[in-house]
């Protein structure tokens, strides 16, 4: 079982408040992603759950037991660090075996579990190598191996993919998702990459300045962002947020329209604009369009190839049922 409940958790370093006061329920078997810009407190929150930082106030309950005062090792959680944090002087085998050795497990059982973990993670050929002799992706797998052998209540991932190159990142993303499906263990994952959050999470927690802005499934956050911050943060490219007269037409202080929800035409439409930059990816075309309705270029996505270039005139029409409306405080109007 891997339930983690945070009750009025607060964290401050001296006078600097990182996390004001926060409640969060993580249910057994969920894949929860903490996402937010750098400095939003997401890593601190993970470290509080891990026990690597002490809470300033509030309670952390793991599996119904108050774990607030428990040392990291007693919480039954395993963590994968951004830098992998492998033990450089130990072989892959010894790295993976380390938590089991610390738990005082007998040798035969350790060997069995390490061999099994190495096999599932395709590490059996590297089992006697040192971390320095491995590639980034292999090191990441060792770190994951070290976490899974313990059969923890929950896994904590602290930006585990940010040190990998783009291609490897996509691969590892899939592997972690598969791992979750197979083990069905609770996973708490921290990232600043909203694509990772969208693709992996059952539940996303969007954080800003230590506050939870919204909690929900990826599609909930995409279709019904609670405020302009979540609207701008979730989705790629970013949602266009337009104020002024255009927003007024929709009875809102700010209107939001995602790049994929703007109809494009070269002859007619609601907003006239000039293409500033066009990005032709083959599968999609992204246009950055300067238009009098907004002082920043609007981003528009067209499926497939849309043959316009810098300087061309285009007409944009937001799909009315896809428009998001926000009030003067930036909160969504439902």
């Amino acid at each position: 079982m891997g339930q983690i409940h945070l009750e009025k958790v607060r964290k401050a370093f001296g006078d600097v408040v990182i996390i004001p006061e926060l409640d969060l329920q993580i249910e057994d078997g969920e894949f929860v992603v903490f996402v937010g810009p750098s400095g939003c407190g997401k890593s601190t929150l993970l470290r509080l759950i891990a026990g690597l930082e002490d809470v300033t106030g509030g309670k952390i309950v793991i599996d119904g037991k108050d774990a607030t005062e428990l040392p990291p090792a007693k919480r039954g959680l395993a963590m994968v660090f951004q830098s992998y944090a492998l033990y450089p002087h130990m072989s892959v085998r010894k790295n993976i075996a380390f938590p089991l050795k610390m738990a005082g497990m007998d040798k035969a059982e350790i060997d069995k579990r390490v061999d099994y973990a190495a096999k599932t993670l395709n590490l059996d050929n590297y089992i006697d190598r040192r971390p320095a002799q491995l590639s980034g992706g292999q090191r990441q797998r060792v770190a994951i191996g070290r976490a899974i052998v313990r059969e923890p209540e929950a896994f904590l991932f602290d930006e585990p993919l940010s040190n990998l190159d783009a291609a490897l990142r996509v691969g590892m993303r899939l592997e972690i998702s598969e791992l979750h499906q197979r083990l069905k263990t609770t996973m708490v994952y921290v990232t600043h990459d909203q694509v990772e959050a969208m693709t992996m999470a059952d539940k996303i927690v969007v954080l800003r300045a230590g506050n939870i802005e919204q909690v929900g499934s990826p599609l909930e956050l995409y279709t019904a962002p609670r405020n302009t911050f979540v609207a701008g943060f979730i989705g790629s490219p970013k949602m266009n947020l337009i104020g002024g007269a255009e927003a007024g037409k929709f009875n809102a202080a700010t209107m939001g329209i995602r790049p994929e929800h703007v109809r494009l035409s070269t002859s007619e439409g609601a907003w006239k604009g000039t293409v500033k930059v066009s990005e032709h990816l083959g599968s999609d075309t992204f246009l950055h369009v300067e238009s009098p309705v907004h002082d920043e270029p609007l981003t528009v996505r067209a499926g497939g190839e849309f043959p316009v270039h810098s300087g061309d005139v285009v007409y944009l029409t937001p799909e009315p049922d896809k428009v998001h409306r926000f009030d003067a405080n930036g909160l969504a109007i439902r």
Partner: protein
Amino acid sequence: MARNVSPGRKIGTTVLAWFVGLVIFFPILWTFLTSFKTELQAISIPPVFVGFDWTLENYQTIQTQSNYLHFMMNSIYLSLGSTALGLIVAVPAAWAMAFSPTKRTKDVLLWMLSTKMLPAVGVLIPVYLMFIRFGLLDSRLGLIVVLFLINLPIIVWMLYTYFKEIPGEILEAARMDGANLRKEITQVLAPMAVPGIASTVLLNVILSWNEAFWTLNLTTSNAAPLTAFIASFSSPQGNFYAKLSAASMLAIAPILIVGWFSQKQLVRGLTFGAVK
């Protein structure tokens, strides 16, 4: 991308490098050669380079005139003793500064280093008087303490830069993996710190071995190390260069051999932290 270097330039820099290397090495080479000459050849003008009658006479004379082994044992005691004492103090100090730094940590480090800027002779008289008072003159213990103190700032600095390089996340990983403090130190920290400690030990041994100011001023015979052994051959009756050279060779030989075998470790130690 590698820079394009013309063959001519490559040869030029190679020659220059060898030249600089030889200039640095020449005094040792000359001392080595002189130690096998007769006293007359040693001061002959023009000097002879290799075409002289090689003799072991100087080395034999030295052995009969003084007890080399006695001095060498003292050098070993002093360098190992001061290094051991240094580690006992510096490891926890550097540890604390690296892993739980405070606002003043940098100041403390700089202050420690500033003591190395004081000319040693400035405190000679007070130290000398204290030594008399405590009966430490010409004692190994007294010298061990002095050598330990003068090298302490350097040991702390070196260890500090080493420990700084150990990522905190690895220690946190160990904590997550269930290691208690003792196991965290013995199984994770110590093995990672060993190379750093080893090169610190090596450097400190060399520094203590070569230290001449305090060892000459605070000893007469009982605790005198090899530096005093060399100095004893520069006598008021005139310098006997060949014997002086032989004595020097005998004094530096042990440390030269140790240094040679551990040069890789030593270079790493001296440049660690400066370049990644």
